[in-house]
């Protein structure tokens, strides 16, 4: 039997190398093992803490797996109807121009039912940040086809694979948003490796700083995995994402402000 001894001697402030950000609440995340949401939440929470935005932030959570996002970040929240977060955030920001206002939405929420709200908020150049988690599937309802599901990809409503002839092609909505004069900073990132986490964190930090400039909408897409919906182990899902999602949704900046 292994005896754990001296643990109290190890837990000392001078030995602390990593801790939970205070902006994360003590609630236990409801996500499946290996899901990218938890990492994305944590990045967001860290940025809010590091940029001193806790008392400024008003978040809008979506309908989807991250519907309970307001359980996890210790800031003021509004829960929007499915797809309507950009409209909700529009009014919050217009009526509170000094606050940091953001939405956090999945692909079904942002690119299917909420397409109009997304396009028009970005086209008006609403001074908000949209964080867009794209995992190519409806996670919460159990793995149905999403607007971003890849050609040939299987889901419970495309059980033989997405047939683009009858089901349409995956929607690259981030590219559309980048083409709109109202958008200011549009980037596509991921959170599946430590290096990518750092890049995503840098992108979200930039977006929070850009919001203070009042120059237009910032959208940070995070291409993510859905081990349960894709019916893979977390490791397999990350590999599959690299091999299949990234070629279709290449990582990198789509629109950067002229410095």
């Amino acid at each position, binding site marked *: 039997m292994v005896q754990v001894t001296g643990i109290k001697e190890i837990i000392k402030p001078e030995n602390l190398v990593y801790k939970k950000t205070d902006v994360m609440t003590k609630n236990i995340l409801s996500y499946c093992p290996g899901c990218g949401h938890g990492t994305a939440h944590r990045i967001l929470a860290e940025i809010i803490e590091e940029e001193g935005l806790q008392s400024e932030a008003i978040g*809008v959570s979506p309908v989807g797996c991250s519907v309970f996002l307001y359980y996890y970040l210790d800031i003021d929240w509004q829960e929007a109807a499915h797809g309507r977060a950009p409209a909700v955030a529009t*009014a919050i920001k217009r009526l509170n121009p000094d606050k940091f206002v953001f939405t956090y939405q999945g692909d079904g929420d942002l690119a299917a039912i909420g397409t109009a709200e997304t396009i028009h908020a970005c086209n008006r150049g609403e001074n908000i940040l949209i964080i867009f988690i794209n995992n190519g599937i409806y996670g919460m309802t159990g793995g149905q086809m999403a607007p971003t599901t890849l050609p040939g990809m299987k889901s419970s409503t495309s059980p033989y694979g997405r047939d683009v002839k009858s089901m349409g092609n995956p929607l690259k909505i981030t590219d559309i948003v980048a083409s709109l004069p109202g958008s200011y900073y549009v980037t596509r990132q991921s959170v599946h490796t430590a290096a990518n986490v750092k890049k995503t964190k840098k992108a979200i930090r930039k977006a929070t700083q850009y919001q203070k400039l009042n120059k237009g909408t910032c959208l940070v897409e995070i291409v993510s995995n859905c081990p349960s919906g894709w019916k893979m182990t977390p490791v397999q899902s990350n590999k599959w994402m690299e091999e299949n999602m990234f070629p279709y949704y290449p990582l990198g900046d789509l629109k950067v402000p002229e410095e």
Partner: protein
Amino acid sequence: MEKELRLMKGNEAVAEAAIRAGVDGYFGYPITPQTEIIEYLFEANPAETTGMVVLQAESEVAAINMVYGGAGCGKKVMTSSSSPGISLKQEGISYIAGAELPCLIVNVVRGGPGLGTIQPAQSDYFQSTKGGGHGDYHLIVLAPASVQEMADFVGLSFELAFKYRNPVMMLSDGAIGQMMEKVYLSPHVERSKTVPEWATSGKPKSRQRNIITSLDLDSNRQELFNRKLLAKYDEIREKEVRFEEFQCEDAEYILVAYGTSARVCQKSVQLAREQGIKAGLLRPITLFPFPTKRINELAGKVKGMLSVEMSSGQMVEDVMLAVNGKVPVYHFGRMGGIVTTPEEVVENLKFKFIKD
């Protein structure tokens, strides 16, 4: 300060009253017969004076969700539309009721169903008073019968909305929205600098985070919330019933009518009395809460009641429930955008109740 006298359309009066009432935000989408509201607001440009936000949304769906966002911040926000647009807003209205947010929704009703007509109607009574969207909820529903009331009910709506944390609907119609009358406008009220303690305004260290939501997956908690809403609606039924009576003291027959129909019926009462028929008029000003108790009292003193509505008969069901079988209750109404004439009402009263 003295009230200012102006000649205005009902729609314009709502817009001007909103600016004067210190409304923080208006979010709308054009639709006949109420587009003058958003046009007036952009023309008046209150952004430069009171700082009121006026925004033309991409759809009625977006507009009502903007109202949700603004109301969730504790601001005085409103939208307006007409029947087909109000149908589109129902999803958002249900969420607003579920999150207990105060706001004003103006419906300048036109005939339906579907695209229907652009002429006045009162065919959205069920939708307005019985919920409208999904789930168990009620709006507080105010029914103006004049341009003056369209102006006055803006302030009253926000007073009630914030008192009960409940959405308020002003249920007007195309006739009152479009017609011009003299209106006394209240002096300007400054926009509020504070927000209620439940509002999402950025979490200071001194308080817990505020969450605006209508979601609870725990059935027991959800039922408790439903019971809380019911208690609120009961309190509203108890305290906020508003109505007006016209020659009901000695009446043998009572016309029940709101909005434009009530104005028509006022003339019908006069015409009926000239013919020796003792008619009276009860005009509900609040459609929810409905003047159930008063109608029941009056039912004990009269021979019958006629619900006059520009619909196929919607409010008549609430009149019947109130009368509870004491005397016969009938409906009379024109549809499709046709406004009933006073003579038609008298003829119908005679036909239904005084056969010979």
